[in-house]
């Protein structure tokens, strides 16, 4: 009955939360066209893309492996990119890249920037932090038995509280990574962790084969939310920015699943999509009924009726690893 009680708690927390204000947003996508690509081969336009009117603009460099990004809280036009080559600061809406890391880290998986500007990133063999805008880095995965970390989020209300997902579950640190405690999903590989924009104590995490996990106690403990995605792999989860009951999940097999009741029930919204192999999903904060989904090696798809119908929206042939709306005036708190 633990699942039911968790779902009820999620519902209550979301329902009680205030709606965020929609503002002016920059819409970014990380993607790669990898159908014919191996290292050393010609790479079609891939990397960071910024939506301009109805077109996608390829910002700066071609890069085959961009997995995560976050914006600078002091300057939302500056992004931090978790890339194969390292962590990049991408200023001027991604046009001006600076590599902030050296040869000792590779294949970054995620990045999260605290409101005070502290930068955390997850990579193939640990987690690092910089408190001086990327000038110097410190390893903070010493307390983790297995280092590989796929998902990382800093609590937007507590800069020293981190949630990390690797191959052995979800771990929480309340002291900036000095110590870590298992928060749930023990022995399960985690793919993504997200914090609700409306309630800082509500978290969701996607997994390989074990479905969706949730926390209603500020990330201290996570429990399975039910059967959604169990036996398949989930890759992304999105909270609606203003509707507390609306959640979307992306997965390989489940495709796009949407809940309108805080995760109590789910509807698969794949009609009109070429496949149910979905790697990224995002709600449009400026259009309450609009949702985007990245379909593996197909394109970005958009729906204006919450997934009842879909149409292509560019980035043809791509595999999208991340979609993100960044408020022009800084983050929604």
């Amino acid at each position, binding site marked *: 009955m633990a699942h039911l009680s968790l779902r009820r708690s999620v519902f209550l927390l979301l329902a009680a939360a205030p709606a965020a204000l929609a503002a002016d947003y920059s819409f970014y996508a990380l993607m790669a066209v990898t159908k014919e690509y191996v*290292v*050393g081969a010609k790479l079609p336009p891939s990397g960071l893309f910024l939506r301009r009117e109805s077109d996608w603009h390829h910002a700066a460099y071609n*890069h085959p492996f961009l997995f995560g990004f976050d914006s600078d809280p002091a300057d939302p036009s500056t992004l931090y990119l978790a890339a*194969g080559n390292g962590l990049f600061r991408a200023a001027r809406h991604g046009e001006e*890249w600076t590599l902030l890391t050296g*040869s000792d880290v590779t294949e970054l998986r995620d990045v999260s920037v605290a409101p005070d500007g502290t930068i955390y990133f997850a990579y*193939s063999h640990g987690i690092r932090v910089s408190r001086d805008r990327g000038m110097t880095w410190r390893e903070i995965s010493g307390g983790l038995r297995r280092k590989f970390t796929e998902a990382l989020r800093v609590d937007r209300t507590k800069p020293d509280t981190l949630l990390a997902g690797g191959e052995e579950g979800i771990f929480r640190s309340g002291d900036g990574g000095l110590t870590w405690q298992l928060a749930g999903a023990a022995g399960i590989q985690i793919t993504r962790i997200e914090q609700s924009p409306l309630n800082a104590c509500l978290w969701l995490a996607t997994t390989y084969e074990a479905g969706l996990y949730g926390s209603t106690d500020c990330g201290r403990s996570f429990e399975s939310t039910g059967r959604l995605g169990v036996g398949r792999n989930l890759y992304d989860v999105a909270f609606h920015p203003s509707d507390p009951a609306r959640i979307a999940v992306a997965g390989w097999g489940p495709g796009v699943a949407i809940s309108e009741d805080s995760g109590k029930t789910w509807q698969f919204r794949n009609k009109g999509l070429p496949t149910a192999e979905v790697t990224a999903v995002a709600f449009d904060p400026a259009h309450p009924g609009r949702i985007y989904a990245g379909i593996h090696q197909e394109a970005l798809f958009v729906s204006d009726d919450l997934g009842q119908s879909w149409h292509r929206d560019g980035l043809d042939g791509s*595999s999208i690893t991340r979609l993100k709306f960044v408020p022009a005036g800084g983050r929604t708190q």
Partner: protein
Amino acid sequence: MKTLLTLGIATLLMPVAAAAETPEFARRKLEIIDAYAHYPGPGDAGYGQIAARLWKHEDAAWCSRRLEELLAAGPTGDMFWMFPVTAIAHLDQGQLTPSARQALKRAWKTYMPYRGDTENHFLLYYSTLYLMSQYWPNEGPGTWYTGKTSEGNLEEARQWIENWVKLTTTRGQGEYDSPHYMGVYLIPMSYLAAWAKDPAMRKRAQMMVEYLIADYAPENLDGLYVGAHARIYEDQLLERWKGVSSDFGWLWFGNGRRLPMPDNYVLYYSLASAYEPPEILKKIGTDRSEPYTHIERKRTRNRWRFFDELNGPVYKTTYVRREYAVGSDQGGTLQPIQEHSWDVTWSVPDPRGVQNTFFTVQPFSSIHELQTYFVFNPDPAVEGVVRSKKTYDSPDKLLGGSPYEKIAQDRDTVIALYDVPANTRFPGINGFFSKDLGETREDPGGWIFMKAGPETYIACKPLRPYVWKPIPDGAPGAGGRRLYSPDPKNGVVVQVAAASEYPDLAAFGRAVKALPLEITWEPVPRVRFRTLRGRAMDVTYGAEPEVDGKLVGYAQWPLFGGPFLEAPVDSERLLLKYGHMRRTLDFRSLTVSDGVE
């Protein structure tokens, strides 16, 4: 007690190769460079032609024009673009036009090469970034795709290169003994040896070139890279001559035959330091007058997931004699996808077109394996791998390691045992029986006796029932046969001998059949076998093998051991031995010492 008389030739920060090239080496090197400089096609001229002509100081105007054309089309290839253009920059020496040089410099701002995900990618990336940052010093961050200064790039690259040298000389190479990728390690070291301005970096690279040659020398048979490999492509696995190693064996030692069009790895090696091995290495690379066992310790590729240690040990054994070589590792998935764990390779007068090898594999394919060694997501993983490694997810494959394969070797005897769980994607084992095997007899006692090449006999005893599957036209190994044995608990015992040791194949068969062999299956496969060499092997699946009642000693396994090379773990030293000749590479002091014993 033996004493080592050092002749006072220790050289600190001095070039390793003070001697002039021998005429034979110079001729072979020029043949390689000419193959590119005067390449008639098919296909358009590329960076290799430009670099070769610049080296020869030929047709500078064409070089500039063609370089600008290639750069205008847009660089591609990541680190495989970086190494050709780095050579071109350093071979320019006043020949290129200012416009061509500017185009090249612009490209290092506008194009961002991916650093890759393997050791060879990183070494190419950082050695070329190092050299180009040195080539254009004092440039600001706006000049480079990294957004760093020249000095920032140089320092980042220096750290990685030095760490790699230290790791390799203390714990072994991670992407070890690849008949193809050996070239990708030699190019960076050859470049740094030729073009690094820092004397310590130049010396370290010169010594690493020699270290890499030494790594290959005892494990080559007529130029073919024998033994277990971290990475090999199927065409090179089955037709052993097709590896880049054939080019290098021919260039360094005059062994075997080079590829018809030499691979560009040997070209770029030749355009930079073009280091000619010293006499002691030539002896090690060519003298097969006495059989020997050579052992090596390497390390696995980085294991990102599912292991507490980033790199695990690899224990290699290679037995070499004039007629054939037998080589193995301990089994397991030590490398993803392209691992080759054991085989017999026999000598033939002309290896071109000949599948002169024999082995068995457990055809393993697994998301778990890919996730161990790669960071990518599981669903598209297999599709992504099969894009370039066509047979990875195939039940009839002949390439790749398996966690359910355990191998023991003593001299020219191999025992491979398998214990495959029921839910494994492809149960059973495959054996490769080449189209080029000679007389083959299936004995009623369960042994298969084969004549391999003119001078080798092989006996193989499959421990479970098997069937023969033809290898169809167009498939790797076409014309040969695949032995398929479906039992999950399985194994083979293989004994090899020189044909000269027996009157004929029948006599060899009788000798093998007379050897004591005891097999048990529960709880795990176990074989006890007395070899033709009189050694008692006791091999239990999952346990360290024993020979003559003693463990083979993995805990004490050195980086190199045998009659020609010695290097303890963590030593950063390599001792080369041949007859009374001795040569020591000491990476702690960056010195090379020659002596006699």
